């Protein structure tokens, strides 16, 4: 009868997550050999730590296979339809800040806003015979954003990595990607549209509303939240 907490299995995200919990009196640490994906928690009762790829944590939360999980807001919103009915924010963790933005070549002096992008997309389609390509892995978020903003005549091209390079490689005209400092965007001769911010993302502790929440687990959650000094989220369904 434990609460399962999904934590990113490697790198800075894992370290910072451990730090965040540690600072609140819940010590998370890896167990076993260095390469074994196992971890334990001290300072909180009935808490089981599961190491997962950060990409998979949204899916595991949505399925209710873990009660709590640490991942980026961007992934939760992209990967989980109707996320707010299924996932509750418990606490932003203050790291992993990144913005999902739209960027175009810096040499496009005539483009600074979505209005410009839309006008250029129309002209581009007339001239080149196909829709202006935007490379991204955030299909849902980008499409919803551009639809709400009334941008037309574009198409999304799937890019799972090195997205900033697609423009130079002539596989896209613009990109929509996550950036924290903007350095990669600048290094690839791109610039962010002034109104092209789609989402501000941050590593966040989420709770799965549809996980098994019996009375004992709810009590454990109550105690954990008190310990972490965060409010217990509402909407956890027993």
């Amino acid at each position, binding site marked *: 009868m434990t609460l399962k907490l999904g934590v990113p299995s490697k790198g800075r995200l894992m370290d910072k997550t451990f730090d965040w919990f540690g600072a609140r009196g819940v010590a998370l640490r890896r167990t076993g050999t260095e390469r074994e994906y196992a971890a334990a928690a001290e300072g909180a009762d009935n808490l089981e730590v599961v190491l997962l790829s950060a990409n998979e944590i949204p899916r595991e939360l949505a399925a209710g296979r873990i009660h709590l999980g640490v991942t980026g807001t961007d992934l939760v919103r992209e990967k989980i*339809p*109707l996320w707010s*009915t299924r996932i509750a924010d418990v606490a932003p963790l203050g790291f992993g800040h990144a913005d999902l933005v739209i960027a175009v*070549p*810096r*040499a*496009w*002096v*005539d483009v*600074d*806003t979505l*209005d*410009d992008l*839309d*006008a*250029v997309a*129309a*002209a*581009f389609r007339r*001239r*080149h015979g196909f*829709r202006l390509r935007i490379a991204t892995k955030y299909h*849902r978020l980008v*499409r919803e954003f*551009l*639809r*709400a*903003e*009334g*941008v*037309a*005549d*574009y*198409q*999304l091209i799937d890019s799972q990595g090195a997205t900033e390079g697609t*423009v*130079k490689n*002539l596989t*896209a*005209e613009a990109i929509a990607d996550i950036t924290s400092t903007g350095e990669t965007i600048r290094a*690839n*001769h*791109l610039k962010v549209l*002034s109104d092209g911010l789609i989402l501000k993302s941050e590593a966040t502790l989420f709770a799965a509303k549809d996980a098994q929440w019996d009375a004992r687990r709810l009590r454990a959650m109550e105690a954990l939240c008190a310990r972490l000094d965060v409010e217990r989220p509402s909407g956890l369904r027993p």
Partner: protein
Amino acid sequence: MSNRADIRREAEAVLERFRAAGAELVDPDILQPAATLLDLYGEDIRARAYVTQDPVRGELMLRPDFTVPVVQAHMANGAEPARYTYIGEVFRRQEAGSGRASEYIQVGFELFDGRDPVAADAEVFALFAGILAPMGLRPAIGDIGVLRAAVDALTTSERRKDALRRHLWRPRRFRALLERFGGRTPPPPTRARLVEAARSRPAAELVAEAGPLVGLRTAEEIAERVEALVADADEPPVAGPEIEAIEALMTIRAKAPAGLGRLRDVAVDLPGIAPAVDRFERRLEALAARGIDAEALEFEASYGRTTLEYYDGFVFGFYAGDRPDLPPVASGGRYDALTRVLGAGRAIPAVGGIVRPELLHLLGGLPR
């Protein structure tokens, strides 16, 4: 689904009526080439259609509607005038949580006849109204042709009109453009600075200065648009009364005769829309001649603007008055622009519509 057979029976009853009206039955493939639909509807269709992959034929879509394949079949070997009907499943991805079916039967009727568009509009509407009469539905009509005519009638550059015409189906951007062209919202400061710089220096220089040019879009294309922005900055704003006339037009929502009166009021400030308003009036007459109580029709000038980029003239829908949560039981309209795109410039005037038999069934069904 246990009521599938019942829904099918409703659909077949409607199909019989369409055939009795002279329509030839067509039976397009369920798998349609995705490229055509994507080119036509844009990225939005990807969010609404099921896309699948064939190793040989490439990206395919489960048909989200029948219109495109029917138009293509007609263009390939049809003679005018032609009437077609069809029956079968269509597939739409629905917003999560909307509760709407992602697979349902449509039965439809399409009329290709360029001789008298107004008469063709009335024929299609009257056919649907006749079939659906026992259901006591509330019909609504619109006319995107009037809105298009209003844009055409503005005293401004073709470039601005093109931009507005392109966004007839995206009300929010349309409004933003209108405000900009009317001088109500100032251009963003970055645009003002660019225009200022471009007055004293060639655009090519500004481009070269901004950084290495990556991607397919050429310096020439950028320079062209910079010139267009300078020209636009020098153009006077669209006059206030014209903007107000379009705004007034978009909000018209009244019984058809009162709606016609308000369209005539708008035509005082935008005389260019008079032919489109005359056409609207002739259509009401043609509807009355077919026994429709045109006086009772609800007219909404913005009706049909938020559907897929599709209808560009007469539009109609039939609603269950006491069930505002339901989509229209039947809907349709004129889509000459779509045939122009599919025909690579060769337009075939076309008007048609579909019935959703599962809603007929839900509302008690057509009398046997």
